[in-house]
């Protein structure tokens, strides 16, 4: 019953990005800017979309932008470096609570609280990442999960500062408000810009030395260290960056919600949704998390409307089917299928089967 070893799932990582490869053969060197132009067009389209939506839809699309940002941020550590961080929601909650506490108790402006929260989460991630990033595979996943749950318990047990289980409300109106609330349209723009920032960072990273270092670590950490990559530093930086971006989104989310609760801001389902989005879209790619996040967030919201009783049931079934049929993610599947002309999803199932 011996089978050939399964094909490496991240073959595409070792190739040069299409942009750089093209610039050699293409004298104008314009093709390397195609992704940038596509991203810019998408951004303009997203701004144009806002004028066509009514209020309920604006909120839904804002949720989708939030998840695009979260998925792209998780992709930095989970997709590029291949470290399955299952505690990402801890940074989301940390950012949200840091902002809420700063705005409520310190009367700090939102525009100052957001970068400070991101810095705080980044520093925290660097601190815990230094010992934990020595762990591999499941051990890292479980350890980060433990960190997130521990953070939630700490927030829950500091009622003077965080309001505990009863939640904390950011003053958003009247004389108390340090920064007035932005309204649905304001948050649409804020989350759109944050998501665009995260995607742009991951796009930039994917063609820099640091991005190659992360992919090398993903493929074989010992070999990466052998060619001179300071793996500890690269991993810790990626982890801290991913945490800081996640915390920035958490900060914006907290202000959008006004009142936040530990149960919601440290909900492990948010981590799982991030992972589902990245895996289904294509881990370690720039476009994958965006595609996955738009699809999964839309389907999840749609299910919530159509099946209020059993949407979690449907979501579970969807995850199971999608994971079996598209284990390498949609964008990677499309890339390989176009190259090999084999579009059968059954080939996918055969790939990782025992």
């Amino acid at each position, binding site marked *: 019953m011996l089978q050939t070893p399964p094909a490496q799932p991240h073959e595409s990582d070792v190739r040069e990005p299409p942009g750089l490869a093209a610039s050699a053969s293409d004298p104008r060197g314009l093709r390397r800017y195609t992704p940038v132009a596509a991203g810019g067009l998408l951004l303009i389209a997203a701004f144009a979309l806002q004028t066509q939506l009514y209020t309920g839809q604006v909120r839904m699309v804002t949720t989708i932008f939030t998840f695009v940002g979260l998925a792209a941020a998780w992709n930095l550590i989970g997709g590029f470096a291949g470290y399955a961080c299952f505690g990402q929601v801890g940074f989301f909650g940390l950012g949200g609570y840091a902002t809420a506490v700063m705005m409520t108790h310190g009367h700090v402006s939102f525009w100052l609280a957001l970068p400070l929260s991101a810095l705080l989460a980044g520093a925290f991630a660097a601190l815990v990442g230094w010992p*934990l990033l020595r762990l591999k595979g499941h051990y890292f996943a479980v350890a980060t999960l433990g960190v997130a749950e521990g953070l939630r318990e700490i927030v829950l*047990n500091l009622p003077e500062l965080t309001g505990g289980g009863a939640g904390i409300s950011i003053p958003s109106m009247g004389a108390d408000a340090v920064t007035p609330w932005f309204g649905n349209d304001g948050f649409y723009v804020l989350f759109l810009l944050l998501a665009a920032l995260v995607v742009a960072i991951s796009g930039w990273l994917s063609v820099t030395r640091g991005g190659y270092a992360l992919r090398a670590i993903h493929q074989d950490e010992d070999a990466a260290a052998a060619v001179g990559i300071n793996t500890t530093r690269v991993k810790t930086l990626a982890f801290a960056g991913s945490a800081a971006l996640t915390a920035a989104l958490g900060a914006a989310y907290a202000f959008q919600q006004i009142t936040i609760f530990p149960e919601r801001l440290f909900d492990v389902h948010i981590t799982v949704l991030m992972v589902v989005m990245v895996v289904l879209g294509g881990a370690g790619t720039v476009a994958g998390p965006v595609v996955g996040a738009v699809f999964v967030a839309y389907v999840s919201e749609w299910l919530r409307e159509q099946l209020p009783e*059993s949407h979690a049931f449907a979501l579970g079934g969807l995850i199971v089917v999608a994971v*079996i049929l598209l284990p390498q993610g949609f964008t990677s599947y499309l890339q390989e299928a176009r190259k090999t002309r084999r579009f059968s999803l059954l080939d996918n199932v055969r790939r990782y*089967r025992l």
Partner: protein
Amino acid sequence: MSQFLQATLYGLLQGCMLGLVATGFSLVWGVMHVVNLSHGAFVLIGAYVALTLHQALGLDPFVGMLPAALVLFALGYGLQRGLVNLVINAPIFITLLLTFGLELLFVNALMVLFSADYRSIPTGYAERSLVLPLDVRLPIGRLIAALASVAITVGMGYLMRRTRTGLTILATGMDRGAARLMGISARHTYALTFGVAAALAGAAGAAVGAVSTFSPADAGRFTLFSFVAAVLGGLGNTSGALLGGLLLGLAESWGGQLLPGTLINAVAFGMLVLVLAIRPQGLVGKAYYASRVEV
């Protein structure tokens, strides 16, 4: 003093049960490198099977451990053979996501079938307690549950080392390629492992149902307990899981006396992270699983 002894006793009894919950989880992780996020749901399915049998036939929940184990064995074997084996060689996110999807399915199915209310299986004797010297109380139900858990866990450890099937499972866990060359069917062995793990969870669930209340929403809590106990004890090691469960039970009941609120949970997670950072192979485990070769 009496309060401290009471907390210690309670923690030990609770720890034995957590050990049984964690044993199956640890087995699956150690042998197949699959972190089964639906393990807590298996525990609850076991509890609801025992509840249904109690309501329909008046079966005692401790007797109900056996049918619960059988039902869960069939479910686990089928799941591994039909689903998990399909992605067993995929990167770790995939199996994590798959079992998480299964957890969502099971928990919601339980909510639809039995509602989200807290239930318990009344027995008439489990509530009574023996009074020991120094006014320490020993609840009979928890005593039976703890003794049964220890017996099953120790028995499992014996069977794993002494029977052909057990050795097959261990061998496949150590080196799947070599095991296949010896004529072992890895698909069947993996399914068997998952079935046994689910059966242990089911038996634990029936015992949990007899001594405490439960609801479908508890699934995540049981999975997390299994995580902590399995990591503390070292993976794929039945006596390790029992030890991890005892440590966790003691930490919880002592911490409940000393710390305010739910801060004890933070301590448990801190312990988990610390053990992982310092001694990832667990307190009594050996780190040989990491070096195996995939074929």
